[in-house]
């Protein structure tokens, strides 16, 4: 920080010889200043934090083993002992809900990471080399992938690969790749045309150096926004696939499969459907609010 501070209560007139301090702030500092003013985004970060804490410390927080069966207490109502009741195998619903956070945290990270690993290089290549590789191949595959309804594609892929958590993650990831390719490509097209890239080339920098040291770091802001949006969508998609039975398999507790179970008891035990749905909702809301804060923080004009 500079020692000189602008004087606020004096009227500055033209011709006044006044040294005005220009405070230089890094992009990260500017981002943080804007982000922390966004209360919904802070709330979103808090929701994500709660979910991560539940996932990591599930064995300490959960009152019971999520898979421990109490055959004398099947589909028991909420009591002081079992706060959310028990399920059809006498397992504690609250404990399963807490352990279920693990699946959702993993679901928010794995497919998005896979999609980034595929989407960023493809977007860089398409935007930088242009030509047939871009227009003729990569972007046409992207167009084709985007023709499939996201959930239909994920469902079909999860089905042919076989039910299971990892296959569901891959299936969801495939649906995210086109979005990342498009965003990265668009950024590269914009940045590659700028003078400093020509300057780097004139200084003898190779393609790899230009792409990785100059273009990639400068194109990451919108990728970051898309990442948080995708994380929200991934939790929803995983819950949907698990609800349909092609995601996480029993006995692993997950919010989606808990809803499948709850659906069979909507007439007599409707309360069973409340908690898992609220958990999914809050987790997705957390990422959506957080993502909106990231967007505003990176580009205040976007709101």
């Amino acid at each position, binding site marked *: 920080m500079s020692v000189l501070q602008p004087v606020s209560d004096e009227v500055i007139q033209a011709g006044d010889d006044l040294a005005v301090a220009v405070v230089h702030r890094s992009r990260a500092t500017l981002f943080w200043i804007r982000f922390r003013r966004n209360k*919904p985004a802070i709330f979103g970060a808090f929701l994500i934090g709660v979910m991560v804490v539940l996932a990591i410390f599930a064995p300490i927080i959960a009152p019971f083993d999520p898979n421990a069966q109490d055959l004398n207490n099947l589909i028991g109502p909420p009591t002081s002992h079992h706060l959310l009741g028990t399920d059809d195998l006498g397992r504690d619903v609250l404990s399963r809900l807490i352990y279920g956070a693990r699946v959702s945290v993993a679901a928010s990270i794995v497919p998005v990471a896979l999609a980034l690993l595929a989407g960023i290089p493809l977007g860089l290549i398409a935007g930088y080399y242009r030509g047939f590789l871009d227009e*003729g191949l990569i972007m*046409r*595959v992207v*167009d*084709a*992938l*985007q*023709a*499939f*309804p*996201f*959930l*239909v*594609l994920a*469902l*079909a*892929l999860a*089905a*042919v*690969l*076989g039910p299971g958590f990892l296959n569901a993650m891959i299936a969801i990831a495939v649906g995210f790749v086109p979005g990342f390719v498009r965003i990265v490509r668009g950024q590269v097209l914009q940045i590659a045309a700028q003078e400093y890239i020509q300057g780097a080339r004139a200084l003898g920098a190779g393609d790899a150096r230009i792409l990785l040291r100059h273009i990639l770091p400068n194109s990451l802001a919108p990728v970051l926004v898309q990442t948080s949006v995708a994380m*929200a969508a991934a939790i*929803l998609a995983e*819950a*949907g696939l698990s*609800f*349909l*039975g*092609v995601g996480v398999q029993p006995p692993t507790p997950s919010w989606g499969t808990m*809803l499948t179970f*709850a*659906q069979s008891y*909507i*007439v007599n035990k*409707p309360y069973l*459907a*409340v908690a*898992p*749905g609220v958990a*999914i*909702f809050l987790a*997705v*809301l957390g990422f*959506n*609010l957080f993502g*909106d804060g990231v967007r505003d923080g990176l580009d205040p004009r976007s709101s």
Partner: protein
Amino acid sequence: MTFAIRRLLLTIPVLVLVTLMVFSLIHLVPGDVATVILGEEATPQAKAQLDHQLGLDQPLPAQYVNWIGRVARGDLGNSLIDQTPVTEAIGQRLPVTAELAIASFIVALLIAIPAGIFAATFRGRLPDYVSTMFAFVGMSVPSFWLGIMAIIFFAVRLRWLPSSGFPPLRDDPLGNLQAVLLPAVVTGFREAAVLMRMLRSSLLEVMSMDFIRTARSKGLRKWTVIMRHAVRNALIPVATSSGLAIAGLLGGLVLTETVFNIPGFGRLIVTAIFQRDFVTVQGAVLVSALLVIGVNVIVDLTYAILDPRIRLS
């Protein structure tokens, strides 16, 4: 006209790639397809027969050419479960899903347009905050859970509406309408949130333009300007995203149809997956992609008619 031809030509590579992807689906099945479908204890003869029926005993390029040839003639193969043509099953289910999709889209527009207009007009004030909060809820709430909750409240508790069953529109219009209402609201809610956000930002952009200031300064009332000048222009980008909306609705309906037990297209895919009926899965996935491509082409062509700048660029 040249725009229309160019737009149609552009879909050819996409169609080729989409068919290649759908064709490859069955080859992604880990291990031997016939064993996966028939089970470990199936006889070698039965497996060989299934391989033959699926054309899997031929070289890959020949398989693709044969398959695409049949698809072009409207033959998506026969269901592995009951041997009925897949096109027939899809033909029966698609109208149900189309009705739901249209109803959901109408619900989405009925919510999104007023909410978007209010949010943009009262930017930074209460209506904006309420609409934005509603949009975040809509984008975050799992539609299938919303469906379950809606069934619990409106069908089980209040007994206002049926929880499942789907009388055909022609036989029982009123019963059909009742059956469509809850699923359409549940599916349309999420799309409403997306459309509302889009309309809000598009409207804010239009309202900062010169012609809006001109309209205001020539004495038109604020609401006349908003409704007659701003909204009409702001709706164009929203309309262009209808293709995306239809894709979103088709995906969302897979879940909604399962929750409400509606015999639609989505339910067909889910059932086929559990029966390992890969031929039906393949056909249904292809049809869903073709629908999205078709809607996108129609939207782009309509857009070009409405906005000459697109045609001439």
